[in-house]
């Protein structure tokens, strides 16, 4: 019996066809994985199935009956449930409140909290997902918060469960626990849709796998009949192992160094727990790791967005632990971000205005407080030619450019700032092959010019192809250092997952 069938679903966002004519069906009691790169349209598809987005076209069938899912309420009535990538929790509420909202035990109009707590305890015991029903959700670790999400969905009697990248934020143990839970749910006859871009996990848990690329369904394969390489090929499109030429440069002096660096995240938890490393002129140091192992906080500390709680941080020999972004910039820090809309560009600003941000003070772009916009345009026009930014009108807003051209604009700006230390944080995220190649080319040019480069990436091929040294981070620690010729993707992957590393068992 088909629990869910998707027929020719499409979703159009302004200027972007997020889902293009997608069809597949999922059998009852199956774990069905949907894989694809960031931006391939996985989350959009799930949001359509779950009634958050309205599809631009196509039909949905649940239990072989055609249905219209206009809202989440409809989806819940059809016994579907979704565990979202970003948890839908209210930090101020208790675990019980979080689990029962939307379907509260009540006496008349009154909320029966006592019964709710009892129900949550019973449920958590029945499905052996331990939670403290009266704890405040915001105080709990991520793994437990995810358990709350799963309990929430189960309590609504969901038969079809959608897990949207559930492992992205989990530790390996938590992932193992999650998979045990998923298998148990499967044994109870529940149908599971598992969204991921981690092929290893997909190969471990799924029965069948659908691959999405740029909004299109590339194919559906049985786990038995496939392997990671084939999936990867389908995901990426053509067999691109970008040829990255080896560039040998004499390594210079230490540009950036940190020692025993501890950084807290926004919620006050320490997520960088004592990192020490240095980056020298003329070398690319790659940081490999699963998302959420401290990369974001490390970058925030290095660009002056948050101050490390302890440890030392030096740029060109100067102490930089408690300085502002402006001081770091002045000392020669440049930063290429993956988050172009939030951190890279001012989208309503024109290309010319974006091109000089950070060097707009002082000549040639301003005299005193007076800004010379003609000089801006002149400069931007030069950069547009040099970096081949299209369509090339410096009066276009940055927001109107494609992702690749936006990234070129960021590169043009950051590389024209006086700098000797470059932080490249997932510099090719969401870019097409051409733009990716361009970024690689520029990074290597920088290396040739003797700059020190720190490359943070989730793509192992990128790390292996570009880095001179590789640091592997896991749970806020550097757990290994190696060089590309001494390691393989597999070995790195194991290290990144913390395999073979002594660590405290977390609850």
């Amino acid at each position: 019996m088909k629990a869910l069938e998707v027929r020719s679903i499409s979703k159009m966002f302004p200027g972007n066809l997020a889902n293009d004519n997608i069809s597949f069906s999922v059998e009852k009691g199956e774990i069905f994985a949907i894989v694809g790169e960031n931006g391939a349209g996985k989350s959009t598809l799930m949001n359509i199935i779950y009634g958050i987005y309205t599809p631009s076209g196509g039909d949905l069938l649940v239990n072989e009956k055609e249905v219209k899912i206009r809202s989440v309420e409809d989806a819940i009535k059809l016994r579907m449930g979704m565990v979202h990538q970003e948890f839908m929790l209210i930090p101020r509420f208790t675990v019980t409140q979080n689990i029962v909202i939307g379907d509260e035990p009540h006496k008349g109009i009154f909320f029966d909290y006592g019964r709710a707590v009892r129900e949550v305890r019973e449920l958590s015991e029945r499905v052996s997902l331990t939670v403290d029903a009266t704890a405040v959700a915001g105080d709990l670790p991520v793994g437990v918060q995810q358990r709350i999400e799963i309990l929430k969905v189960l309590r609504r009697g969901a038969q079809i469960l959608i897990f949207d990248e559930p492992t992205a934020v989990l530790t390996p143990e938590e992932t193992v626990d999650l998979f045990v839970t998923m298998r148990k749910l499967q044994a109870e006859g529940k149908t599971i849709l598992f969204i991921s871009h981690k092929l290893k996990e997909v190969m471990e848990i799924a029965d069948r796998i659908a691959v999405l690329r740029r909004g299109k369904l590339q194919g559906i394969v049985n786990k038995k009949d496939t392997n990671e390489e084939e999936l990867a090929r389908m995901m990426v499109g053509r067999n691109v192992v970008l040829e990255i030429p080896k560039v040998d440069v004499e390594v210079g002096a230490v540009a950036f160094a940190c020692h025993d660096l501890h950084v807290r995240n926004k919620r006050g938890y320490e997520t960088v727990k004592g990192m020490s490393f240095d980056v020298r002129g003329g070398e690319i140091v790659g940081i490999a790791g699963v998302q959420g192992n401290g990369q974001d906080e490390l970058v925030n500390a290095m660009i002056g967005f948050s101050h490390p709680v302890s440890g030392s941080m030096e740029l060109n020999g100067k102490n930089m632990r408690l300085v502002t972004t402006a001081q770091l910039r002045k000392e020669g820090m440049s930063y290429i971000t993956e988050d172009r809309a939030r951190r890279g560009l001012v989208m309503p600003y024109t290309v010319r205005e974006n091109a000089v941000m950070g060097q707009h003070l002082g000549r040639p772009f301003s005299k005193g407080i007076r800004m010379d916009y003609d000089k801006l345009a002149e400069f931007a026009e030069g950069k547009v030619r040099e970096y081949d930014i299209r369509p090339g009108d410096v009066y276009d807003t940055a927001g109107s450019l494609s992702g690749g051209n936006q990234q070129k604009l960021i590169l043009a700006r950051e590389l024209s700032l006086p700098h000797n230390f470059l932080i490249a944080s997932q510099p090719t995220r969401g870019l097409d092959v051409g733009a990716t190649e361009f970024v690689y080319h520029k990074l290597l040019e920088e290396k040739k010019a003797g700059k020190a480069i720190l490359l943070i990436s989730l793509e192992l091929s990128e790390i292996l192809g570009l880095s001179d040294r590789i640091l592997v981070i896991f749970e806020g620690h550097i757990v290994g250092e190696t060089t590309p010729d001494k390691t393989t993707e597999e070995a790195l992957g194991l290290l990144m997952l913390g395999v073979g590393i002594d660590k405290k068992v977390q609850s």
Partner: protein
Amino acid sequence: MNITQINLTIAQMLDYTTPILFAALCGVLSESSGVVNIGLDGIMRFGAFFGLLGAFFSHSPWIGLLLGIAIGCLVGALHAFITIKWNGDQTVSGTAINVIATGLMTYLLEYVFSTTGYSPQLQNYFGAQAYRVHLPFLAKVPLLGAFSDLSVMIWFGFICTVLMHVLLYHTVLGLRIRTCGENPKAATTLGINVFRVRWFAVIAGAALAGIGGAALSISSFSGFSDSMPNGVGFIGLAAMIFGKWTPFGALGAALLFGTGQIVQSLIAVTGIAPKLAPGLTLILPYVLTLAVLAGFVSRSIAPAADGMPYYKEQR
């Protein structure tokens, strides 16, 4: 200063407090769901005028109260229409309501009563002897004596505070309202219709502001004056923040601010510090509110999604 004087002062203080309390409760309900309503000052002005209008022509303050509620709902619906249906800026919409209220009430005052400045005085209003709640057994009790003879509206204010607390913290709807104010997206994924909940909270809140306005014109005073509400709505906003967005907190803050308003007459009665500049007691609510917002006293934190428009399909 004798017992009678103290009782009178307390009663007077409660008279000042009630409109502030209703305004604050309006804010608490509306902002718990995530919609800021700085138009509540204007809604109070609507409520004050229409409350008087109803009471004047029907000779019953009850009808006035109903009319105040009705107009509150109507203006609240306008705010909801602009901010929820069309995602308009909540502050801009509130400002528009305040400005419209200023002009429209003066116009209507002139149109209905052919006067400027003040409406005719009411004989039948909640502050009048016939409409006061008499509890003679309290008269002799120290401190509670003031409660033996109060306007109906004051008691109504206390009751509304309790009801609001029950609504927000002990009912299903309350839990959902707070969910929409904290994380509307999560609410959507749980099948809660954020738009419907917010519409309800804004309109019900505005009804309370309407009552607050009516409390001015047909309880604290016996008529409408063109300067009403004279910023009481904004004191209410301050009371809401000072009370940390909770009903009982709002009550406490309203009592404190009400006291600040009449400290002047207290000083006159007691003869303490006659030289104290009067402005200094009147600015107390605002200074205290800034202090708690800045965390100088104890921090007051708004609901997480307060003031954020909610778009269902957003990437």
